[in-house]
């Protein structure tokens, strides 16, 4: 479970006295490793295309509060991958997600990256957990122009690349808005 390991490593790194700039992050996220107290809210739609492993219509909404120790203190994330009729939901209260794990975050510029555990449901199947990564960038107003962007959203299932899972890549919004506040 490399995703869970990454979450555990980040959580451990954030809670000790190591300066934030020394935190280890998965290479695909990039950016500076910082975790100032922050709040991000957003929602809308992206339409990632191949070669991203999760492609097609994706809608989402989220509200994230990050504390100074790199832990997401509270938040909700809702993501739907429509081609596979897959729903993802993350619910965070008092720094803990619904599976007893500690969700973590970092901020670089106007972007936030979150690692947590989501409960997942395919069509009418049973809910089950997957470690996920979310990245959202507030690049200007309005967040979605008649074309796409400038705001971007990325959703990655850390331990599964099969249909309905995978990685959307950092994709400009087709509709919606992301707000750093």
């Amino acid at each position, binding site marked *: 479970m490399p995703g869970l390991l990454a979450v555990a490593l980040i959580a451990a790194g954030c809670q000790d006295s190591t300066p934030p700039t020394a935190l280890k992050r998965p290479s695909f996220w990039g950016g500076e490793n910082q975790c100032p107290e922050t709040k991000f809210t957003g929602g809308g739609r992206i339409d990632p295309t191949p070669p991203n492993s999760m492609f097609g219509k994706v809608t989402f*909404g989220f509200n994230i*509060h990050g504390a100074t120790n790199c832990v997401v203190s509270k938040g909700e994330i809702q993501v739907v991958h429509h081609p596979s009729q897959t729903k993802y939901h993350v619910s965070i209260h008092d720094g803990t997600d619904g599976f007893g794990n500690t969700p973590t975050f970092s901020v670089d510029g106007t972007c936030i990256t979150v690692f947590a555990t989501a409960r997942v449901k395919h069509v009418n199947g049973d809910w089950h957990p997957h470690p996920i990564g979310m990245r959202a960038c507030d690049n200007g107003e309005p967040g979605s122009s008649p074309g796409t962007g400038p705001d971007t959203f990325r959703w990655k299932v850390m331990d599964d690349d099969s249909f309905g899972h995978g990685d959307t890549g950092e994709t400009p919004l087709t509709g919606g808005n992301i707000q750093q506040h």
Partner: protein
Amino acid sequence: MNVKSIHAVNPLATLALVAGLSAWFATAGVAQSVGGQAYGAYVNTPTASLGQSPLAVLPAISGTDGDIAYAEADASGVPGTLSSEFLNSTTSGALGTAEAGAQSTATAAAINILNGLITADGLVANAVSSRTASGAASNANGSTFDNLVVAGVPVTAGDAPVDPNTNITLPGVGYVVLNEQIPTGDGVTSSGMTVNMIHVFEQSPILGLLGQIIGYQTVGEIIVGSATSSVGP
């Protein structure tokens, strides 16, 4: 020293300064309220009824916390009038120091209205409102239909938008408005948007004294895919 400085200021000048600053903040500040809701389906006709479902309503927001609401359903409808599947409604919003915004999304799949009169593989309703120091604005970007067919005529092939407020007559039923967009606000301190992707108006004729048709009246409504967002002073 500070006390002496305050007493040295002309009271009228102070009042003028306060009034000026208040006016500037009223113009340049961001919204003090945001709102949003989304739902997948609604039916209110003489023969069928279904409340807005699944309905997500943005809670009242104060401070800069932001919030989100969501609702979902595997299926929703009324036999013979509407069937739909995989419905998801989400709305979120926040009051920031530089920007206030709300955004709502409603989605539905496998839509069948009035026994095949209108069908679609799916739809997305998106509404966004935001206010910054430069003004308030809303849009419905990203609102699309997937393989929409109305009265046997394909309207979209694959996933595609339809022009806002597209009106199509439904003989014997009434008419349908596709991508119905209802803007609100002054565009300066407030702005809002409601988008109803499919809005069917069932109508019946109004008869004159001699039995002739002198007009039509709406007797029922069916809505699939509705998203609303707003920002206000």
